[in-house]
């Protein structure tokens, strides 16, 4: 690794030759990269979209079609088409009859090993969380990663209550995590023994995210309707 010396001991003799070589190689490399990029672009975009779609399908049961919305400054939502990565996106899911069946929202928070990123589905009609999917986590395999696989844990999210209070400003009962087997109310998340920390993190992430998004979405629920 001695490029330091080599770069600085430039001898004047061959500086044009050096330039030629570098430019030549640079152009060749750029060419190869751009070719590959163009060649794989559509395939990669397709793969990614499919992955996202798959995740959204998982959290909104019964949906066949999605649309992406962005939160604007005046706390309402605009449709967008190009997929930019942004924290203010939500996805609306519709059934065959273009009826809104749920919203998919991304959220993240601190888990046992690192940040956990999740996607969850919210149905404004029933005012319930209807689905849950882990986008990214580094929790311990076989332990913390039960949050992705444990049937009992995942069943928490088929109908988790997030009903709003009368004036629609906040959730009536915020989601709280409890330890395994202690779930008594529809807004509680039943934990996983042996992965208490990870499962609690999920509860907390949901609780935090829903108190932000649910009132906003509920208030604007009409704006997601597909005008026929």
């Amino acid at each position: 690794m001695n490029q330091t010396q080599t770069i600085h001991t430039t001898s004047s003799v061959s500086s044009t030759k050096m330039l030629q070589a570098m430019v030549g190689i640079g152009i060749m490399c750029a060419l190869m990269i751009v070719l590959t990029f163009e060649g794989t672009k559509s395939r990669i975009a397709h793969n990614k979209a499919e992955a996202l779609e798959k995740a959204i399908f998982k959290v909104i049961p019964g949906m066949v079609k999605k649309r992406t919305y962005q939160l604007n400054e005046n706390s309402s939502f605009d449709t967008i088409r190009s997929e930019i990565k942004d924290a203010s996106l939500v996805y609306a899911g519709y059934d065959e009859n273009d009826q809104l069946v749920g919203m998919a929202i991304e959220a993240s928070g601190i888990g046992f090993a690192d940040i956990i990123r999740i996607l969850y589905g919210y149905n404004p009609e029933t005012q319930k969380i209807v689905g849950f999917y882990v986008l990214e986590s580094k929790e311990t395999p076989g332990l913390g990663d039960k949050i992705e696989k444990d049937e009992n844990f995942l069943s928490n999210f088929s109908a988790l209550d997030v009903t709003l209070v009368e004036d629609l400003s906040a959730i009536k009962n915020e989601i709280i995590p409890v330890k395994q087997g202690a779930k008594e109310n529809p807004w509680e998340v039943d934990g996983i023994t042996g992965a208490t920390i990870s499962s609690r993190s999920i509860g907390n992430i949901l609780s935090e995210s829903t108190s932000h998004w649910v009132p906003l979405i509920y208030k604007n629920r009409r704006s997601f309707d597909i005008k026929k």
Partner: protein
Amino acid sequence: MKEESLWYIFINASLINNFVLAYFLGICPFLGVSGKMETATKMGGAVTFVMIISSICAFGIHALLVAINAPFLQLISYIVVIASTVQLVEMFIKKMSPTLFRALGIFLPLITTNCAILGLALFQTNKGYGFIESLVYALGAGAGFTLALVLIAGLREQLDFAEVPNVVKGTALTLLVAGILSLSFMGFAGLGS
């Protein structure tokens, strides 16, 4: 959506997900210079320093690449820009502070294209950190790298005077110690949650 606090970014990069002990980045210098305390400390300083530089570079390059919509140049421009910036800074230090140069200088060429440095740049981009967050992340990663290096160096210096069985001597012993240290660092998991 809750932002990660700067504090958590630092703890996470230095202790919970230590670059050496949890991400396996920078293993080569780690195995190479962790035999002596003195070199370990200097190497740690040099790595932290280069990490901060590369974090700044990466932040700038990323913004630029997003602007001109050329993500495919990311890797090439990271490595080229980081390597040349470090070299410029090295020349600058050589002029400005010969003592500092003597302390860190010999390590700089070794680490400019090291995976911990590039890894930091890539991770911070993946995580979408802002400028301040990136800096804190680099600082944490550097501190964690230095901590791991210095801890191992102390242990290895002590083990120079131990009746280590022949088959274990060398890299294997360092890896075993690193493994135990990696287990010990698991105690920090979840800090800040």
